[in-house]
């Protein structure tokens, strides 16, 4: 009747069972129940023995195929960019025309400094970003479709499986994918990774997953310098980013202390047809979030830049730094200043160019100005885009890296390695490219 006696014997029993079976009694009991049910099912379920293959399973035979899975992923990614740029192109040029008209009006405004602020500063800078609202929304439509159909989880799964084969265990790709939106969010989401080694490597490699803020740069430069191949060029940026991310992750792994690595099981929800409403809703939500953030950042940056430029401060800074990049083809002071402001926020790069370069020709839109005023060739543009892809992430990302890794060391390391990687890649591309083109 003694209750403590009962509980004591219980603990003894549990200990005994754990010794004999190596498992909790709870597990043994659950197993017995499932075993009973399993046996029962054989007598109760007349047919079929195996679950019928659903439509989802059939599709997954292709999508998750060990050999075709990655090509399918790349093809779909490429398709997304093609769709985005081809469809948005006419809309973008309309918007550019509208901006030019506005800029034209602004030149008539009376105090000269106000006119300059309006036409070069605000309309030039902010306008450059606004001119690809169509690109952003189209991209997010495509992404929403990928998400809502259920494909995205397959993409993450396929990529992680690839990484496991290279020896990169853990569940990185799922969180790395968030980096396509924003590096800050991706770094924060790395908290879901238990293994500290996996987590650190994931954080370090996240900036290489081209974030949404870099898209304006690619979009504008690709439209100007590679008109027919826009989609392909932008796709290549993302692809390079992913490839280098995997490469650097593998490299970092070799240098860090080996520890336990994780394997995981992922639930892949059934495919479904997305509804127009949800796709549009997602598109609107994300697109709006992106644009409002970009818009505010740019507005602030643009005014700041314009002020500094009015007083020639920036030109001095730019000329001091520029020579470093001449080997990569973009050794102009405007480019250097753009890169510097890019550390504050990647959206600022475009805004900087927009403000510093005068006038916006209607015909080719904004990108052409860069070509004519800075003397860029498509090769330079490509090298510059690669630089943007790889070099120092924005301060928000840097600060979250410091916060999540708990030390300055890794933040500084990130600055160093991304800068080096970016510079080397851009220079190589320009130098080697110059030999052939």
């Amino acid at each position, binding site marked *: 009747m003694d209750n403590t006696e009962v509980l004591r014997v219980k603990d003894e029993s549990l200990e005994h069972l754990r010794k004999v079976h190596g498992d909790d009694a709870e597990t043994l009991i659950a197993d017995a129940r499932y075993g009973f049910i399993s046996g*029962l099912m054989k007598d109760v379920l007349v047919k079929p023995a195996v679950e019928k293959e659903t439509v989802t399973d059939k599709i997954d035979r292709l999508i998750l195929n060990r050999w075709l899975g990655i090509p399918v992923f790349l093809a779909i990614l490429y398709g997304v960019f093609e769709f985005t740029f081809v469809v948005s192109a006419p809309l973008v040029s309309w918007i550019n025309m509208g901006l030019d008209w506005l800029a034209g009006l602004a030149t008539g405004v009376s105090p000269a400094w106000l006119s300059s602020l309006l036409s070069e500063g605000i309309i030039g800078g902010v306008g450059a970003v606004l001119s690809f609202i169509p690109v952003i929304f189209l991209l997010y439509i495509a992404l929403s479709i990928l998400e809502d159909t259920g494909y995205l989880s397959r993409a993450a799964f396929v990529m992680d499986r690839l990484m496991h084969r290279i020896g990169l265990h853990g569940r990185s790709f799922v969180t790395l994918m968030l980096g396509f939106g924003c590096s800050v969010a991706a770094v924060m989401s790395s908290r879901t990774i238990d293994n500290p080694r996996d987590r650190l490597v994931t954080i370090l490699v996240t900036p290489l997953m081209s974030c949404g803020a870099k898209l304006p740069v690619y979009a504008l430069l690709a439209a100007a310098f590679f008109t027919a191949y826009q989609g392909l060029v932008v796709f290549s940026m993302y692809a390079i980013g992913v490839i280098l991310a995997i490469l650097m992750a593998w490299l970092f792994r070799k240098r860090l202390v080996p520890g336990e690595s994780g394997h995981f099981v992922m639930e892949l929800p059934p495919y479904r047809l997305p509804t127009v409403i949800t796709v549009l809703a997602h598109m609107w939500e994300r697109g709006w979030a992106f644009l409002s953030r970009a818009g505010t950042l740019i507005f602030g940056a643009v005014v700041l830049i314009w002020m500094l430029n009015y007083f020639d401060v920036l030109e001095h800074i730019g000329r001091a730094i520029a020579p470093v990049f001449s080997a990569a083809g973009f050794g102009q002071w405007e480019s250097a200043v753009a890169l510097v402001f890019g550390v504050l926020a990647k959206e600022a790069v475009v805004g900087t160019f927009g403000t510093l370069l005068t006038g916006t020709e209607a015909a080719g839109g904004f990108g052409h100005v860069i070509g004519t005023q800075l003397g860029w060739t498509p090769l330079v543009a490509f090298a510059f885009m690669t630089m943007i892809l790889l070099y120092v992430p924005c301060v928000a990302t840097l600060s979250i890296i410091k916060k999540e890794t708990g030390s300055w060391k890794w933040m500084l390391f990130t600055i160093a390695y991304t800068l080096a990687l970016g510079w080397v890649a851009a220079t190589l591309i320009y130098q080697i490219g110059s030999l052939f083109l």
Partner: protein
Amino acid sequence: MSKKEITVALAGNPNSGKTTVFNNLTGARQHVGNWPGVTVEKKEGFCNFQKHRIRVVDLPGVYSLTAYSLDEIIARDFVVDEKPDVVVDIVDASNLERNLYLTVQLLEMRANLVIGLNMMDVAESRGHRIDVKALSSLLGAPAVPMVAASNRGTAELLETIYGVATGGIPVSAINLRYGHDVEAEITKLEKLISGNSLAGSYSPRWLAVKLLEDDREIIKKIGQA
């Protein structure tokens, strides 16, 4: 059985169609409140059958009867403390293996069980064919095929509930053994428990199993008894 009211507890997994069955049975004669002391919704309703009033209590949807979540504790306590005349377990026939995990535990509790084998249409569309008679006989409890979404099987369910409540349809306890070693420990604990005051409301074997599962609630109750 002289009393005019039959109490029926409605159990089942979430998404098994339990709510639909509840609505089919009680229609507009239901009201919503809370389980005592908690913010979990409690639905009760009434219907009539053969001059008996049937009170249907909708238990929270649960996948098993452990002490890990409040919903499970509520469901479990209701079956033990209130001792409903019948427990109806709504089972999703297209997800049989998973749903039966709860069924097995209800049978272990010696509940007067009726199995509502719901979503038979979905199971069929997936190519499953279920031998309902075999299911009933192997589990020792009557099973009623249903498609609650089209209100099919409700009359048969009521009949079966009535049959079980009045003793017309027998429900036998299943013989689930957990393996030699575990059974040995169960026997040991059973002997010690039969002196405990809890043994009145719960079956000693069930208590022993719960103890081995390290069930927090039962351990607490034993400590307090």
